[in-house]
């Protein structure tokens, strides 16, 4: 197995030069994207407590085709973060699996592709329908 060279800060491991760094950085980027969306989403959903006029005016933005494309990005980000998180949890709870890290990473990537492609297909069709409407 390739040796992971780590740049060790006092506050955690920021490893560089290992293939795992790409899934690590993607995990962080998707995580930040999802929590920033969540901040907004809690607020837009909370508007339901101010009645139909306020709520419907704001959530009608979700019918915009461009916003709908962002929605696809959100779904793919959550999907990636979930599957990669499952991989992390699996290896953390069963550390000996680390010897199979390559196989597990490939399995994660394949699972992501197999779920992301139909998801993108379904949601792009929704986007197209919104664009035509």
């Amino acid at each position, binding site marked *: 197995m390739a*040796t*992971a*060279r*780590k740049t*060790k*800060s*006092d*506050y*955690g*491991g*920021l*490893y560089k030069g*290992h293939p*795992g760094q790409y899934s*690590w950085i993607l995990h*962080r980027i998707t*995580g*930040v994207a*999802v*929590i920033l969306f*969540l*901040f907004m989403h*809690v*607020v837009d*959903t*909370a508007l*339901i*407590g101010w*009645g*139909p006029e306020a*709520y*419907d005016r704001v*959530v*009608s933005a*979700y*019918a915009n085709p461009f916003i*709908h494309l962002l*929605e696809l990005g959100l*779904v793919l980000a*959550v*999907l990636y973060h*979930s599957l990669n*998180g*499952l991989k*992390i*949890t699996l*290896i*953390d*709870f069963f*550390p000996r699996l*680390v010897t199979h*890290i390559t196989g597990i990473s490939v399995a994660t990537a394949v699972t992501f592709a197999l779920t992301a492609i139909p*998801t993108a297909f*379904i*949601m792009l069709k*929704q986007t197209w*329908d*919104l664009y035509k409407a």
Partner: protein
Amino acid sequence: MATTTSPRRTQDPPGGSDQRLGRERPIGGGELWLWLFMRISGLLLLVLALGHLLVMHLFATGAERINFGFVAVRWASPFWRTWDWMLLMLALVHGINGLRNITLDYVTRPGLRLAINMTSYVIGFTLMVLGTIIVVTFDPSKWPGAV
């Protein structure tokens, strides 16, 4: 705990620090509980968040069909109110702790670190309170004729 500049103590795996991929497991205390929480809540969120996305975005049409009436019907069911509330709380704590981990890794100036962490704690706490109040108290009969 959360905003100090003291190093977080971690334990290397048996093969040495080079054998560990990703975040090191903390030795103990609150950091170890948070480390465990991230993984357990992650597994729960896998079901809650992916289920939420499947139901709201993939089955039938997407989020464009959502309006006041849609939510009123959906939240008539205690099952969905409970689902949404659990998703709200777990996702916020998981996400805020994730932001904190990232801040501790990349922001070394103590004042800036404190400011960023405090800001995200305040936002997170506010949204938990706001979301909980709305999920618990929402009553569509206050707007007759809207559903």
